[in-house]
């Protein structure tokens, strides 16, 4: 089913999303990948605030290629989510509501998704040129020294994703494969 949602997310939006839904996201989302997650993890160990309010928000696991002149961003597709698994349950417990990436997650992440009524979306891996067309603005808001791994605030319009793990723990990667296995 096709669904159109706007950020930030709340329980009523998340409850309506089911594994396999095509979802078009409009609003503000934040990028963070390996190095930014490590810094956020260390920030929390020092009892300091995260560089943005993650409550109700979505993190997009993505590090773009540089923008050409006059464009908001370069190529901008998802990176493999499992490298962030170590840090994810804590962020979900702090209020993170959604993640966009690609690939499998651990059972720990799945449990944290269910516990916090959150959602894991996949964007199409390797379609960075196409996905960049749904990004209207991009601004580095933290960790500028990390280059492509800095945290960016993106304004997106109808950004296309697919629900992989929904708030009940249904996992599209597991169910869809069974359907076509021969």
């Amino acid at each position, binding site marked *: 089913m096709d669904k159109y949602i706007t950020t930030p997310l709340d329980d009523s939006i998340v409850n309506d999303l089911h594994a396999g839904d095509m979802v078009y996201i409009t609003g503000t989302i934040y990028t963070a990948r390996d190095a930014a997650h490590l810094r956020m993890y260390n920030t929390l160990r020092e009892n300091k605030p995260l560089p943005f309010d993650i409550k109700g928000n979505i993190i997009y696991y993505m590090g773009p290629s*540089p923008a050409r002149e006059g464009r908001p961003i370069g190529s901008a597709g998802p990176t493999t989510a499992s490298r962030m698994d170590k840090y994810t349950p804590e962020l979900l417990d702090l209020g993170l509501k959604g993640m966009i990436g690609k690939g499998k997650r651990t059972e720990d992440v799945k449990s944290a998704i269910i516990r916090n009524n959150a959602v894991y979306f996949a964007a199409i*891996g*390797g379609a960075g040129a196409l996905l960049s067309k749904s990004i209207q603005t991009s601004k580095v808001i933290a960790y500028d020294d990390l280059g492509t791994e800095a945290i960016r605030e993106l304004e997106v319009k109808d950004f296309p994703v697919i629900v992989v793990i929904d708030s009940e723990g249904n996992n599209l990667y597991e169910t*869809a494969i069974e359907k076509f296995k021969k």
Partner: protein
Amino acid sequence: MKEIEVSSIISAVKDMCIEASHFLTKDMEDTLVKAVDAEESELGKQVLKKLEDNLKIAKEDMIPICQDTGMAVLFVEVGQEVHITGGNLTDAINEGVRQGYVDGFLRKSVVSDPIERVNTKDNTPAVIHYDIVPGDKLKLTIAPKGFGSENMSRVFMLKPADGIEGVKDAIVNAVKDAGPNACPPMVVGVGIGGTFEKCALLAKKALTRPVNVHSEIPYVKDLEIEMLKRINESGIGPGGLGGTTTALAVNINTYATHIAGLPVAVNICCHVNRHSTREL
């Protein structure tokens, strides 16, 4: 003796970095387009169509096909009659990579040390494999490798008693473990034989062979066909979202090996199987 000035090497490498990141070879593009019709899953078809659109946008707007423009891997065949002038070959290749990634708006994804992890900000150094060959030509092949799929690649040190069935299981298991992480539909490069490092190199090089060309060795060709069929029966499908197109091709290279060994390397590449070749 033929003289080749390093400046011509620098500019060739620079152009090839940019070309490979924005344009797939015709065999890759044709195979991807053909897959749309063959795919049995509706969602899988949609994903493949979007990948087709993505290639078009990349070309027309000069946006890299994938944001992970990779670590630059080069296969260099140096004719033994070639004399490089004006500098050294390795420096020239790295300078070409530097200029290609900086001037071509490509992502800088290389850190100088695996533990200290400081970005070099120009995507150097490249990983360069040299071969000395007869003749007076310098042949450069660049294959920028993204790490979503590189991370899912494997080396298996099988026993001779495992035989071809062991090899088949190793290939299929590597692909199944990779699943959605490696951005399917994948291209699967396989190296069989040699030593620990040689089989990995065979597998990487297999990815640069056109996806519509089989091995010239009859049993290897049969193995390529059988493996592609088995992989596509796994159900993983485009994007890992279920379907019948999990891989676009399986390319296998073989080499002599030791009486005690059967090394197998599976180097997985996503559908953005980029490479570009020039001869100077």
